[in-house]
């Protein structure tokens, strides 16, 4: 078995900014990321959707690079850029020909130092974000299902349970004061990590990081609200209307154990046993064998990228001739089977090989086919911000490859319990086309 090792250098600047470099001269391309340890979980109450709206504002101008200049300077260097907001982190990233590295670092440092935005920028991006929500959620069949539908049903702490894309009234209420306060609180170097991957020498990357980021003043350590959940002791259920699609849908989510524990590793492999594509037990039973469902997939979303309560979630679209009860009963039968018999030694072996193969793909993997090393960047950033241990990229596999059948069996019995789950039904407003005809 050939194990892959990523060469990593890391340091922390005097202002608290963490810097991680992973050199690889295969292609004359360098990927740069800046991750801030703030996501939508901890955005202010009454300002749902703000962390994401704020991410948009980071492209609207900084002290020396006014509006449109970030995008123009990256594209015209031959590169691509984007940002994204998730539960516990927000990222900004670029992939450019390596001769543009210093320019990219200058731009990222400029917007970490000082945001320069006005009311017109805010109004503009508020409009853009509303169209983003419409195109991804409100005007799509099963839009936001289940990632936006599940949290309010499953969780009790506002941090985990609110609308992460934002209620439009909250987006409208956000003003420039909110933008600057959020920036000042969370966008400080001591709450961030800079990643430089690809065609760069470690010493060069660190020197450039010091040159451009070194004089940004540290801020007060950001306050972090507690995202923990009270112990769940009963099954929770909710209903949401489906406006466009005609198939009934449901999502079932089980609370995950704490990350980086042996139980967490066992659940990750159990997740693959249940959801791993066409060989996964749920797809096989519900779609291929019993043919109740049209889709049965899901799993643990971004397993390395969260740092608070989360779930393993199954998403099912089923045929209208089967009731929700019948569909759920078929799902429960699959869960019961692993609780009674665990999985076979052969299946576990298959899952481990697939896990290793998928992990390598993650490390290399682009995002949408255009961002080399996105996956490696994401893992290094999360292991640095959550664990202060970027080298976990090279060792985290061990825990998964050591999982036993007995641990899978125990995890199935301990975590896949009805009182640990939440179910959301997404029910079509329209009858299916066949019934309507």
């Amino acid at each position, binding site marked *: 078995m050939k194990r892959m090792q990523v060469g990593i250098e890391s340091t922390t600047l005097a202002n608290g900014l963490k810097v991680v470099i992973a050199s690889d001269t295969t292609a004359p391309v360098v990927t740069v990321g800046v991750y801030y340890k703030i996501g939508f979980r901890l955005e202010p109450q009454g300002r749902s959707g703000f962390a994401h709206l704020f991410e948009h504002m980071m492209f609207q101008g900084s002290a020396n690079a*006014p509006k449109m*200049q970030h995008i123009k300077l990256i594209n*015209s*260097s*031959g590169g*691509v850029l984007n940002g994204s907001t998730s539960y516990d982190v927000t990222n900004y990233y670029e992939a450019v020909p390596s001769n543009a590295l210093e320019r990219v670092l200058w731009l990222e440092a400029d917007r970490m130092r000082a945001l320069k935005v006005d009311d017109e920028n805010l109004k503009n991006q508020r409009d853009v974000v509303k169209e983003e929500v419409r195109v991804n959620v409100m*005007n799509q069949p099963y839009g936001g299902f289940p990632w936006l539908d599940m949290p309010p049903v499953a969780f009790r702490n506002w941090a985990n349970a609110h609308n992460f894309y934002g209620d439009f009234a909250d987006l409208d209420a956000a003003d420039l004061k909110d933008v600057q306060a959020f920036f000042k609180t969370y966008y400080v170097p001591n709450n961030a990590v800079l990643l430089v991957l*690809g065609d760069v020498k470690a010493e060069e990357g660190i020197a450039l990081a010091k040159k451009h980021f070194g004089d940004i003043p540290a801020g007060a350590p950001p306050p972090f609200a507690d995202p923990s959940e009270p112990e769940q002791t009963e099954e929770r259920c909710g209903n949401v209307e489906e406006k466009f699609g005609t198939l009934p849908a449901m999502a079932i989510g089980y609370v995950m154990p704490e990350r980086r524990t042996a139980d967490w590793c066992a659940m990750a492999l159990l997740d693959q046993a249940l959801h791993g*594509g066409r*060989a996964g037990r749920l797809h096989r039973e519900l779609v291929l064998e019993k043919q109740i469902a049209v889709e049965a997939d899901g799993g643990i979303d971004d397993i390395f990228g969260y740092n608070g309560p989360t779930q393993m979630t199954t998403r099912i679209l089923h045929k209208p001739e089967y009731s929700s009860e019948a569909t759920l009963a078929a799902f429960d039968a699959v869960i019961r089977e692993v609780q009674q018999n665990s999985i076979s030694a052969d299946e576990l072996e298959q899952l481990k090989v697939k896990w290793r193969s998928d992990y390598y793909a993650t490390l290399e993997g682009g995002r949408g086919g255009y961002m080399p090393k996105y996956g490696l960047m994401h893992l290094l950033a999360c292991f640095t911000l959550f664990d202060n241990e970027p080298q976990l990229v090279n060792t985290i596999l061990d825990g998964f490859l050591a999982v036993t059948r007995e641990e899978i069996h125990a995890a199935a019995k301990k975590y896949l319990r009805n009182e640990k789950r939440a179910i959301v039904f997404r029910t079509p407003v329209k009858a299916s086309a066949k019934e309507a005809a």
Partner: protein
Amino acid sequence: MATRTVEVATGVPGLSAERAVTWPKRTKARLSNGLEVILAEAHSIPKFHGELFFRSGNAAVADRAPGLAEMTATVVRTGTAKRASRQIEEDLRRIGADLSSGAGADTSAISFAGLSEFAEPLLGLVNELAREAAFPEPEFERERRQKLEEVKLERTQPGFLASERLRKVLFGAHPYAQVSPSEAQVAAYKREDLQKVYRDAYTPENGLLLLVGDFDSQAMLQNVEKVFAAWTGKKPETKTAPAPAHPRGRRVYLVHVPGAVQTQILAGYHAITRKNPDWVKLGLTNSLYGGAFNSRLVMNIREDKGYTYSPRSGMHALRQHGYFSVSAAVRNDVVAASLTEIFYEMDKLRSLPVPEPELADAQNYLSGVFSMGLATQDGLLSQLSTVALNELPDDYLETYRAKVRAITPEELLATARKYLDSANMQIVVVGDRAQIESQAALFGELEVFDAQGKRIT
């Protein structure tokens, strides 16, 4: 109508010397059975990616039924003479591999990726799927029922409804007009139809095998010869459908989705295939117009006006014909305003030469992004397949950047005049008729359809 004045950045570091872009050596071979093989090494991770293409897709069999090649590819993976469906899926997992099969308008393909240490069993399975697919009756029936649900579902997706209508408008009676079958057409699929497509199209003479990844090319080629040598089969006869008529004059096609809270705009017109010498020039024109974040259209209707989240233009190269299109999902009350800007930016590119600095920026963008294909195994695979399937010159990857950099403002102006044919653009809007019809009708004679594709008055 112009966007507001753009301030410039101050103190921006210049670019350092460019490092040479070196594309990996390609090893090419043709096996004695006619199978074309292209290999390239990329040692970024201990895996490899592959794709076995057949140069026949849905268009080649559209006279029998739309989507028949896609349905054939779907059922191919569900059983062979030696392995049942479940066995195939478990064997893939056992070697850490992913595999999918599908068909576009011009090709059918089995795509796969796996650990290098298990290259031989993965190639063995691919060979089995290409030669000995069994089309088990129950699997066929299940996949057909599954397909029925998929075609129902796609009729609720605005993006699908828009592209389906545009293809019908642009291609009329040509097979490229069909992007998806109807429910009735799926219900009429027969197992024998699929088997005939399979027998005719899945042959080594019709095939192209591409492999990119962590292997030694010579050893891999021997492996390929060993695995695929015994396979035989002729190239199928190809029929070329008559060229589609080019509609004249702007027309508007409204697909009515009651209750839509946004409008999907898609406008397009005939353009060129990848083999056309103007392709690179049109690529640069496109990235100036709406093909990049920093493009004129994105800056205008997103960053200046906030009408939309994701405006984009692009070129679509099918083997026989290509087309250009621009899309944006916009707020219902700015459908007319968005179309006005879409045509304003198009007409501006047709009227005035692009200033030199803006041209240089776009040239840098296009040549930089092109080289990113080098950095990942699947990125490289996709570049190599584009070259091979479109029969582009062997040095296409090596010479592309120089070609981009040589383009002049005058050439761009000529390209925009020729292919951004704004006077003849066919406009599709998908949304709630009551909210958008009068706005859309400002841009041409308007017809209304329902989501099932039926014309309504």
